């Protein structure tokens, strides 16, 4: 304690060491533990404990009906891994994540580049454009249900008006439909992130490029895109993480059907737990989902939310 206190900030501030690594925080004894105790306690009880409890549940035959709980080893994992519905949910979720993330990045980027200039009505239009981000995905699902309803919905109505009679919830159309809806709801989000990133690009680069005779498309290709790499990555990563655990919109809209073709991993677990009532099997599937996502953890820690003060 004392040693640390000595080699810390007083010396720094006297010597004015101009390095980025200057550490100015002082260990102030118990204060830091007192201040953080509530959060640490909260996280221990409601984050750490549930992780271990969840692992335990996945190793038992606990269900909604059973009051006696038996340890059954890895049987639940075997049940999940041999369940065709799990694999189809995994396949659907991965496909859905890759396709929607790619599309929503493209639409967000195009829109951000187009909107990155002065134009009449900008402020009001931005407010309107960002509205879907604020709407609960579950309510968005309800609204889509309304807009897409075969009898009274606006979209089928418009399609009929132009002589097209398609059933949007048909098995062959429904996955495409869900992708379109996801892109509609989350384009404003990627737009917002990418637009904020564009604001931070140095204008001189583009002036220099245009003096050198670069066209706009060339400037976008050779300046904007490379410089926006990290921002695009962050936006895409956040969307992908959300898409991987997608539940609300699909559950409200299709309930995972028709059949199981739109059952995402989260819907699979939810149904296994609260409709089939097999808590053990459901939690084993949840553990497998967790294992799939753990390799992504260093990315969110290292790149997306880099420690703010480490860069200074």
């Amino acid at each position, binding site marked *: 304690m004392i040693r640390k206190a000595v080699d810390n900030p007083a010396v720094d501030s006297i010597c004015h060491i101009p390095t980025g690594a200057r550490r100015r925080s002082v260990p102030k004894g118990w204060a830091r533990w007192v201040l953080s105790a509530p959060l640490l306690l909260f996280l221990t009880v409601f984050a750490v404990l549930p992780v271990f409890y969840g692992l335990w549940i996945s190793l038992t035959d606990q269900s909604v009906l059973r009051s006696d709980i038996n340890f059954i080893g890895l049987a639940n994992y075997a049940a999940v891994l041999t369940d065709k519905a799990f694999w189809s949910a995994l396949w659907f979720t991965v496909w859905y994540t890759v396709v929607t993330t790619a599309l929503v990045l493209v639409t967000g980027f195009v829109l951000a580049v187009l909107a990155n200039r002065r134009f009449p009505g900008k402020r009001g239009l931005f407010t309107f454009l960002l*509205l879907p981000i604020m709407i609960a995905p579950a309510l968005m699902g309800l609204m889509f249900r309304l807009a897409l309803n075969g009898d009274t919905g606006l979209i089928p109505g418009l399609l009929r008006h132009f002589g097209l009679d398609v059933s949007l919830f048909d098995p062959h159309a429904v996955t495409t439909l869900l992708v379109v809806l996801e892109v509609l709801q989350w384009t404003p989000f990627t737009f917002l992130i990418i637009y904020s990133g564009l604001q931070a690009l140095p204008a001189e680069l583009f002036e220099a490029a245009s003096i050198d005779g670069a066209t706009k498309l060339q400037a976008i290709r050779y300046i904007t895109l490379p410089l926006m790499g990290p921002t695009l990555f962050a936006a895409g990563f956040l969307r992908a993480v959300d898409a991987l655990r997608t*539940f609300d919109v699909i559950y409200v809209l299709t309930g995972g059907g028709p059949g199981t073709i739109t059952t995402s991993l989260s819907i699979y677990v939810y149904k296994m737990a609260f409709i089939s009532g097999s808590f053990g099997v459901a939690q084993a599937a949840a553990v497998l989902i967790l294992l799939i996502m753990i390799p992504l953890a260093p990315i969110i*820690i290292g790149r997306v939310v880099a420690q703010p003060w480490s860069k200074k």
Partner: protein
Amino acid sequence: MTIGAQPPARGHRLNWEGLGATIVVSLAAILVNVPFLTALATSFKTTAAISDPLSLPIGENATLQHYANAAYAAGYDFELYFRNSIVISCSNVVLVLLLGIPSAYAIVRLNLAGRWLLNAVAGLRLLPAIFFVLPLFLMFQNLALIDTVWAMIIVDTFLNIPIAMVLLTRAISELPIEIEEAAQLDGASTYRILLSIVTPLLAPTLVAVATITFLFSWNDYLFAVVMTTTNARTIVAGATNFITSFGVLWGDISAVTVLSVALPVLLSIFAQRYLVQALAAGATK
């Protein structure tokens, strides 16, 4: 000439481009809001007019009946659900700030636990919520907290702490440390500095954290469906209740949906600056 980040408006060519941008952004804004606009229109249309999807809620097609129905429908207690959502979201904001501010300060300024703690908290954001659904459900069942607002307040705090910690630690690290050092020389204790100096300086970030926390708790669906049935049901979970138990009363459903998004929509208009700041900062460095 025109590709700079914010080119000044000159010449008529630029005006054409500006106009083009207006048109493209308007179209995009209308397109992404089709679901909301449809619900809004449907909620004011008479039942007869609803069967024609291309009609507009004007003249004899317009009615407020669906809002009256929504307020007094059997099995859908708008007043209770609305109050629950307000109680849960507001308590959640308070709890997140109470837990978040002191520990963010401890992490940034008092060298708490190096960086692994913030990393671990930020990493929580990545964990699939579905993993925690069953363990928390069974824990709350044992504690007799199912269908109480307490369960929802705890769960929503858990969901919102990661982004709150990222925003708070960043904001604290950007404060000039000289003020705190001066206060320390004057004999102020760490707690005093945090309470009287740091927290007031964080005001804009606190508003951003509060807004985004409120919004996320308001919008939560998965946990609300699992943890609540009637007494603590939130307005969002209640709205989807409506669709399953009442069949195809599209007008009433639209009214319920519009009522459920009214507050977030107002927030997004009046606190947009803070929301944008929070969303963008949560995603980029």
